[in-house]
C-alpha cells in the first residue's frame, strides 16, 4: 500500500515541516465564566509554565501532522467494500478535518493536474471520481500513522466535535450571507486544525514538567488554554504544507483576528463566528446543557460578539442561527458516532 505514495508526491512533501511559534488571541477566551466550567480557564502560573514548555518544543520542530486512526480504519474498510459509494466516502471524509485537508492537498497536487483548484470535497469527488478519492483518502489515512494521546481521549473527542460543529455552523452562516457554502464548511472544519496536531506535544510537555516537579495533574487544567494559545501558528504551517485553498488558510490564520486578513476577510469572519458557536455547543454539552440562567448568559455572549455586527447579521438572522444549534448538534453527534 505504501506504493501509493509514489502517486501522491504532495503527501510526502508535507512531512517534517518546521513549525513556528505564532500565538494568536482567541475570542473564545471571553466565554462567560458562569457557563464555562472549562479547565482552560486555568491558573495563570500553570498556563505560563506549560505554555513556555510547549513554545520550546514548537520552536524545536517537534510537532507532527496527525491523522485520526478511527477514520483511517474506516477509510480502509470503505476502500475494500464493493458497496462503497460517494455519499459514504464524502460523509466519512467530512468527519475528519485532518483527512479532509489532506484529500484536498492531494487532489490539488501536480499528480492529478486539476484544471482548476479543487476547493471542496464535493468538487473532488465530482472531478476525480469516487475511486480516486477513495484511494487518496486511503493513502492519506495510512500515511498519518497512529494518532493516540493516552489519557486525552476526551479532549481529542471534543476537538473533533468542535471542528465538525464549526463546519456545520459555518455553512449556516454562509447561507445567511450568501457566500460559498462549500468552502465555508472547510473553513470551519479546518480553522483549528492545529489543535489536534499540537495536542501530543502539549501532553508530552505536561508529562515532562509534572515528572520533574513530582506533582501529577497540576498542569492538566492548562492544556486546552495552551492549545488555544498556539494552535493558529501550527495551523498556518499545516495550511502551507498542505497547500490548502486561500480561503481555508485565511480562516485558519485569521479567524480570531479577521481585521488583519489580507484577503478573504469574510471567510475568516465566518470561521470566527462558527468557532464561537461551536465552542458554545461543545461546552454546553459538557455541562449537560446547564440551567436557564446559564443558557441566557451563553446566548447573550454569542449575541454581543463583535463579529456578529461586523458580518452585519441582524438579530432576526441571529435568531435563525441560534435555532440551528439543535440540528447542528445532531449532525455532530451522528458524525461522532
Amino acid at each position, binding site marked *: 500500500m505504501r506504493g501509493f505514495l509514489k502517486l501522491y508526491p504532495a503527501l510526502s512533501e508535507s512531512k517534517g515541516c518546521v513549525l513556528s511559534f505564532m500565538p494568536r488571541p482567541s475570542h473564545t477566551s471571553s466565554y462567560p465564566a458562569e457557563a464555562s466550567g472549562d479547565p482552560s480557564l486555568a491558573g495563570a502560573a500553570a498556563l505560563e509554565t506549560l505554555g513556555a514548555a510547549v513554545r520550546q518544543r514548537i520552536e524545536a520542530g517537534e510537532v507532527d501532522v496527525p491523522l485520526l486512526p478511527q477514520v483511517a480504519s474506516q477509510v480502509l474498510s470503505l476502500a475494500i467494500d464493493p458497496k462503497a*459509494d*460517494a*455519499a459514504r466516502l*464524502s460523509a466519512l471524509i467530512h468527519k475528519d478535518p485532518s483527512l479532509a485537508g489532506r484529500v484536498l492537498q492531494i487532489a490539488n497536487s501536480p499528480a492529478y493536474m486539476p*484544471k*482548476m*483548484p*479543487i*476547493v*471542496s470535497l*464535493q*468538487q473532488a*469527488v*465530482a472531478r476525480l471520481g469516487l475511486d480516486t478519492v477513495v484511494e487518496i483518502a486511503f493513502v492519506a489515512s495510512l500515511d498519518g500513522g497512529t494518532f493516540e494521546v493516552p489519557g486525552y481521549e476526551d479532549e481529542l473527542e471534543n476537538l473533533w466535535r468542535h471542528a465538525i460543529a464549526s463546519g456545520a455552523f459555518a*455553512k449556516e452562516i*454562509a*447561507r445567511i450571507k*450568501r*457566500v*460559498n*457554502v*462549500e*468552502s465555508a464548511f472547510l473553513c470551519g472544519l479546518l480553522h483549528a486544525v492545529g489543535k489536534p496536531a499540537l495536542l501530543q506535544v502539549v501532553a508530552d510537555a505536561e508529562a515532562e514538567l509534572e515528572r520533574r516537579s513530582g506533582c501529577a495533574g497540576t498542569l492538566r487544567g492548562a492544556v486546552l488554554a495552551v492549545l488555544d494559545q498556539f494552535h493558529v501558528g501550527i495551523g498556518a504551517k499545516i495550511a502551507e504544507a498542505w497547500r490548502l485553498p486561500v*480561503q481555508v488558510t485565511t480562516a485558519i490564520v485569521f479567524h480570531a483576528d479577521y481585521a488583519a486578513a489580507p484577503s478573504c476577510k469574510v471567510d475568516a469572519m465566518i470561521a470566527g463566528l462558527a468557532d464561537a458557536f461551536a465552542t458554545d455547543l461543545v461546552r454546553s454539552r459538557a455541562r449537560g446543557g446547564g440551567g436557564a440562567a446559564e443558557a441566557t448568559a451563553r446566548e447573550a455572549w454569542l*449575541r*454581543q460578539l463583535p463579529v*456578529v*455586527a461586523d458580518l*452585519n*447579521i*441582524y*438579530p*432576526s438572522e441571529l435568531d435563525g442561527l441560534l435555532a440551528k444549534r439543535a440540528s447542528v448538534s445532531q449532525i455532530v453527534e451522528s458524525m461522532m458516532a
Partner: protein
Amino acid sequence: MTASSPPASSPLAPFGVAATDVLGLDRPIHCDVLVIGAGPAGQKAAIQSVKSGRTTVLLEQETTVGGACVHRGTIPSKTLRESAVQLARLHRHEATSNVEPRRDREVASLMTSLDRVVTAHVGYMGRQVDRNHVVRYCGRARFVSERLIELQSVTGQRSRFTADTIIIATGSRPRTPAEIPIDHENILDSDSILSMLYLPRSLTVLGGGVIASEYASIFASLGVRVTMIDRAPRPLVFMDHELVGKFVGAFEAADGRYLGRQSIERVEFDGVSEVSTHLRGGETIVADKMLVALGRVANIDELNLAAAGLAPTDRGVLAVDDNCRTAVPHIYAVGDVIGAPSLAATAMEQGRRAARHAQGKSPGHSPEMIPIGIYTIPEMASVGLGEEEGIRRFGSILSGRARFDEVARGQISGITDGLLKLITDPLGKRLLGVHIVGDGATELVHVGQMALVAGMEVDAFVENIFNFPTLAEAYRVAALDIIEKRPA
C-alpha cells in the same frame, strides 16, 4: 432634533460608527423626507429631496449604499458577463492572436475586477450622497404608525424617526419556491450563484426570464453545459420573437439547451455531487449545480406595512399611482418594491419623480420610452412598441431589418449574428419601436430612443450621417428596408 444636525453619539450612526445610547425613542428624530433603502431608487429620491432644500434621512440595512443592484445583482453579474464576453472574443480571434485561452476557469478569477468595480461604484455613490448632505443611518426600518418609523441596528439598538414624506425603496430579493430545496450550495438562487468558486461542468437553470437568460448564456459561453427549463415555450416572452430566436440560436451553439412548456415534479440533490430535476413529462435533467431564477419578491416583510395603513397587492408589491404615491398620500414607493419593470434606470427615475412630486413640484412627463437592456450573450435591447402592440394600436405595421453581417463594422469586429429591427406605422414613416440583438445592443438602442422621443420619421436615419464604419449604420440599412416597403 432634526436630521440636518445628526447626533455625534447616534446609536445608529452610519456605517460602523459606535453606538452609545438609545436615541429617539422618547422624542423621535424628525425630518422632511425619510427614504428607506439606499439602492438606485432610494439614492436618487434622497438626493432630489436634499437638492430641494428638504432635510432628508436615508435608512439602509446594509453597511454600504448601492443595494442589490451593486452588491448582488446588476454590477456583479455584468462583471462576470464582461469576462465571459472577453473570453468569447479571445476564442473568436484565437487563430490570429496566437493566444490559447483556458477553457475552464475559477469563477473567482473571472470576477477579479469585481471588488474594484464595486468599491469604486460604492465609493462614488457614497460620496455623492454625503456631498449632498443626506444623513444616513444603518439598520432595519419598520413602521410604527403611518408617520413613525423605528430603526433597529445590527446590534439590536433602536431609534425612531418621523417624517412629512416617507419614500419606500427597499428593493427585492430572489423568489425561493418552497418546493425547491435551495441550499445556496448546490441549488442556488441569483444572489448565491455568484458565490460559486469554480465553474461546474453542468448547470440547470430554472426560469426563462431576464436573470435566468442572462446567467444561462454567460455560463454557456464559459463552457458550462447549461439546460434552461421553463413553462413558457420560449425564453424572454416579452421580447421580440426574432431577437429571442437569435439569442436561442447563440445559446444552442454554445451547447445550451432550452426546455420550454415544462412543469417540474421535484428537484433533489443526491447528497454528493448531482442535482436532479424531474420533469412531469418523465425526463430527468442531471447537473452539478442548479440556479433557481423564478422571479423576485419585494422586500416588504419587515416593514410592518399594516401600521402605516398599507397592504401589498396580490402580487406582493406596493401599488402606486403615476407619481409613485401609495394609497397613503405622504408615503411613496419606488423601484423593485412596486414591481415591473424592475430596472435600475427606471428605479432612479421613479425615485426622482416621487421626491419632486412630494415637494409639490412637477415631476415632468412620465417617460414612455423606457429602454429595456438584457445582458445576455448576445445582448438584447428594446425601446418603444413591439410588433404585436404596434398592430394592436395601428391596425398594421411595417418593419425593417438590418443584419449586422450587412454592416462593415459587424464584419470587422466579428459581430455578425446581430439584428436591428425598426417598427413603424402602416405608412412606413413614424417610428414606433426599435429592437436589437447583438454585441453593443444596449448602447445602440439609445440612438433609436432619442429618435422616438423626438418623434422623428425613419427617413432621418437615411438623411443624416453616422460615422463609418459603426454598428449604428444598421439604422440606415433598416430604415431603407422600410422605405422600400412603403405603400405606393
